[in-house]
């Protein structure tokens, strides 16, 4: 007996709506996409700083980051986040290339962070021991930075690769 995949009609309608959307064409110019990528970077940095300095302010930047992330995804028609069956052959190709870029950038950030941790350990450790006190703000700064990068990097890479519409 053949098992057929049950199509997700609701998702199909949403995808169709995004692909045919013209209300947000102003987000899809080359200049707007570059501006959104720059804004996303600023928000990620500001978010980390806010959590470290004034933890409640970090919540505000998380909300701002969510809005910027939405705008970034709309600027590339959510291509970076859709399953391949909802994309045409060209969109699949650019999405795959964007993921290669996003992986390389994420790996670079992780490598820098891990190396910085290693260097700090070497500098501050005594008898191969270094006790670090992690505050709630520090934990949130690290969490939201890596969470934000993991979620936003594919769309950022796609926004920089694609020509404006």
């Amino acid at each position, binding site marked *: 007996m053949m098992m057929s995949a049950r199509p997700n009609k609701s998702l199909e309608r949403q995808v169709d709506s995004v*692909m045919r959307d013209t209300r947000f064409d102003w987000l899809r110019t080359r200049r707007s996409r570059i501006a959104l990528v720059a804004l996303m970077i600023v928000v990620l940095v500001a978010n980390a700083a806010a959590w470290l300095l004034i933890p409640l302010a970090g919540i505000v930047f998380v909300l701002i980051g969510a809005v910027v992330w939405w705008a970034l995804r709309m600027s590339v028609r959510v291509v970076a986040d859709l399953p391949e069956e909802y994309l*045409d*052959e*060209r*969109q699949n190709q650019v999405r795959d290339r964007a993921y290669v870029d996003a992986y390389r950038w994420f790996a670079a950030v992780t490598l820098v962070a891990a190396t910085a941790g290693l260097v700090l350990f070497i500098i501050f450790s005594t008898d191969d021991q270094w006790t670090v006190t992690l505050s709630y703000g520090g934990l949130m700064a690290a969490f939201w930075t890596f969470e934000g990068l993991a979620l936003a990097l594919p769309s950022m890479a796609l926004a920089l690769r694609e*020509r404006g*519409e």
Partner: protein
Amino acid sequence: MGRKPKSEEPVYSRLEELRAAKGLSRNELADEVGVHYQTIGYLERGEYSPSLSLALRIAALLEVPVEQLFSLTPFTKTEGTR
């Protein structure tokens, strides 16, 4: 002998001319062959090389041989007006 980078292998297209001759908009052609209208734009500008399947579907819809639609060498004026 190494592989040529893909950027050095352009695919020339008469898609815009033949699409207009059929009276089809980008959106209409895109819907008929199952791609996004933006992809049609990329094909017309020669910025994207279609798969064989897509090239054949477009050629069948426009009722032309696929080699009159896409080429590895620039189309001559006579080919364009034939």
